[in-house]
């Protein structure tokens, strides 16, 4: 049902749609204009072997990362679903934490556990074995699985808990064997949810930059994103960068189309509980398998988190002086980008919610598709756009803030849209019949019911921006840095101790911002 929109909301919504279009389409158009060689408009058209290798590696690591994450998530989600244990709810919430963890911080933690001088190597050496090294494909996969196994577990866990409890009781009553139960209950659920989870994770990994920057590289482990970065920063070959970015954009759109076509709701919330007795789960081997799955997950995700804290905490006093201006830069960028993205996200979500079904869905899909461009793709476009007029290196801060806000928009819309739809559905007729218009409708109806999800999404936007190591790497001149960039540079200079200290500072700052916004949204809120 379409109703006459509040003019203020309609205006803000239109502005948001235009802003989204400008931020993505203009850079992509710039890429198109500059991709002479790729599009065959130039005589010296040629695709190098390195470019093909980068494309291959991009797809290979995305495929493997997604496959490993989803396959491992199945036994883990199953174990969490059917067991009651101390800290179960906490574990489910902690599964959301890697998502907010700055990538470079996670890399530091993973290296502290899995690296050449990490904990596992130390154990191996004392047992008389070789050190392990995680640079290259194995490191990229390790980091991607670290980030996405928890995500896949949450998605599959939610699907598991959507199976009606009656079906499990029914299976119990008619005495289904575990394998029959798998065939009739669990396999159909997995078949419907696993492909969506796989594609989503493949999409995320195909455009992952910071992980590959830190752990990949070289002829055998360079992705398109990294190749774009190197083309600009090392070779200043802008035409090649534009061509690569266009290919990267095409891959992103292709994945996003498939994900959206599947149209699977990816939830963030909890509400996962189990309230029945399942007798077959109490066989000894079933308990052993589940304990192993849950224990492995806790070790795999928990050890690097623990390492970040343990290795970092003693090194905070040794932080180099460039850390502090970088912290200020990061916070400024986070504040700016959060303000922009939450304002636009709210306007866009309320607008989509008040549109009738079809145009609403169309705008939603448009905003998702437009934003399936990765930060590096948009960054490259902006670089090419600005370069004839000003030195892009002077605009690192505003450009990073702008791109970060664009990147968090799809997430913000996903969080806010359900709340907006509910508000419009529940209060829309009342607002219309009472004739509440303009500012009072926003103040009395929309804002009170949206401030809590808005605070949550602002927290996520701020934390993601704090941790971002993408476009800033492209634009930052040597004398400018954000905190993630400082961590990366310290790491590259083999000043591991200082890098670990800065990483801990970064993660504390990110989570502090997240909690400040999230609390702020709920403060004095009674609805």
């Amino acid at each position: 049902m379409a109703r006459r929109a509040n003019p203020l909301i309609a205006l803000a919504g239109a502005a948001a749609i235009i802003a989204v279009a400008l931020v993505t389409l203009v850079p992509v158009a710039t890429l198109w204009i500059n991709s002479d060689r790729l599009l065959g408009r130039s005589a010296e058209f040629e695709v190098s072997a390195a470019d093909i290798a980068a494309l291959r590696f991009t797809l290979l690591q995305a495929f493997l990362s997604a496959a490993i994450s989803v396959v491992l998530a199945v036994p883990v989600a199953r174990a969490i679903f059917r067991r009651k244990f101390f800290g179960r709810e906490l574990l489910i919430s902690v599964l959301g934490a890697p998502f907010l963890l700055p990538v470079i911080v996670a890399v530091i933690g993973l290296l502290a556990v899995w690296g050449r001088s990490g904990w596992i190597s130390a154990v191996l050496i004392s047992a008389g074995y070789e050190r392990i090294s995680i640079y290259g494909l194995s490191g990229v996969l390790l980091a991607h699985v670290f980030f996405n196994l928890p995500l896949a577990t949450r998605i599959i866990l939610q699907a598991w808990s959507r199976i009606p409890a009656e079906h499990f009781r029914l299976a119990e009553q008619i005495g289904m064997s575990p394998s029959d139960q798998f065939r009739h209950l669990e396999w159909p659920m997995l078949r419907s949810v696993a492909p969506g989870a796989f594609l989503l994770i493949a999409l995320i990994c195909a455009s992952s930059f910071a992980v590959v920057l830190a752990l990949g590289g070289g002829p055998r482990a360079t992705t398109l994103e990294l190749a774009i970065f190197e083309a600009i920063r090392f070779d200043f070959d802008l035409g090649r960068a534009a061509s690569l970015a266009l290919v990267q954009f095409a891959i992103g759109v292709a994945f996003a189309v498939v994900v959206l076509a599947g149209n699977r709701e990816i939830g963030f919330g909890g509400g996962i509980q189990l309230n029945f007795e399942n007798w077959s789960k109490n066989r000894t081997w079933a308990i052993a398998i589940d304990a192993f799955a849950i224990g492995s997950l806790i070790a795999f995700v928990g050890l690097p988190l623990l390492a970040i804290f343990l290795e970092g905490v003693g090194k905070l006093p040794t932080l180099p002086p460039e850390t502090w201006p970088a912290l200020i830069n990061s916070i400024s960028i986070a504040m700016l980008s959060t303000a922009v993205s939450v304002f636009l996200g709210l306007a866009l979500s309320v607008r989509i919610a008040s549109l009738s079904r079809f145009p609403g869905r169309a705008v939603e899909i448009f905003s998702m598709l437009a934003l399936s461009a990765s930060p590096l793709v948009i960054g490259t476009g902006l670089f090419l756009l600005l370069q004839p007029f000003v030195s892009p290196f002077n605009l690192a801060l505003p450009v990073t803030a702008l791109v970060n806000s664009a990147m968090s928009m799809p997430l913000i819309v996903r969080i806010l849209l359900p709340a907006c739809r509910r508000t419009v559905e529940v209060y829309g007729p009342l607002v219309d019949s009472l004739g509440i218009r303009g500012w009072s409708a926003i103040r009395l109806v929309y804002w009170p019911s949206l401030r809590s999800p808005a605070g949550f999404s602002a927290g996520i936007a701020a934390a993601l921006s704090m941790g971002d190591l993408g476009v800033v790497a492209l634009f930052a001149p040597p004398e400018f840095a954000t905190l993630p960039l400082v961590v990366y540079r310290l790491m590259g200079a083999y000043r591991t101790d200082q890098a670990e200290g800065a990483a801990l500072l970064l993660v504390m700052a990110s989570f502090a911002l997240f909690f400040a916004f999230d609390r702020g949204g709920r403060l004095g809120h009674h609805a």
Partner: protein
Amino acid sequence: MDITLDRLFLRIGGFELRANCRLESNRAFALIGPSGEGKTTLLQAIAGFLSPVSGRIEFGGRDFTNIRPSERPTTILFQEHNLFPHVSVYNNAALGVRTDLRLSKVQRHHVISVLDRVGLSGLRDRMPGELSGGQRQRVALARALLRSQPVLLLDEPFAALGPGLRKEMLDLVAEIRAEYIITLVMVTHEPADALRIADYTLLICKGRVSPPSDTQEFFAHPSVELKSYLGL
């Protein structure tokens, strides 16, 4: 087969329920009472999905308190979700015979005749999503009959149906009960349902289960609790 609830004490979260009574063999019993008073909880415990804190559940004089649901002489029909959505009507019913669906020729004929008996001839190859609410519960009923357990537990499986269809389904249950010699325990909040097919009625109220009373008597001379439930 008779059912004995021997000083049964159930607890879910903060909710508690006590029952101490015997349900006679081959009769129909209605469990009536306000919602949230534990009618479903009691049924779940009889079926074996909930372990009691203390007390015993006996069928035919044998203790089944710690026996798993599939080993009990019971079949339960839930309010909804009684069918596996991606399994055909025929197979959903056949699961009551063998869960691996490897049926002999005789067993296959038996499944078909029971599906005919509950009025589903011609719908065997449909998927549950293609059936009406009443038809879905008929499939569940067919599976219950194929399991041929002497105790049938109904957790308001017909509550979502219209009044006409509900009466029709209750009559079908009554007929089947006579044919197959079944002890029936059904949850309901409608006195009319109890009066239609239940020999005895038990009232669940304030965490206690009253002993079974003759249904006609029970409603003709309502107790104080029943009066307050009925709003008299």
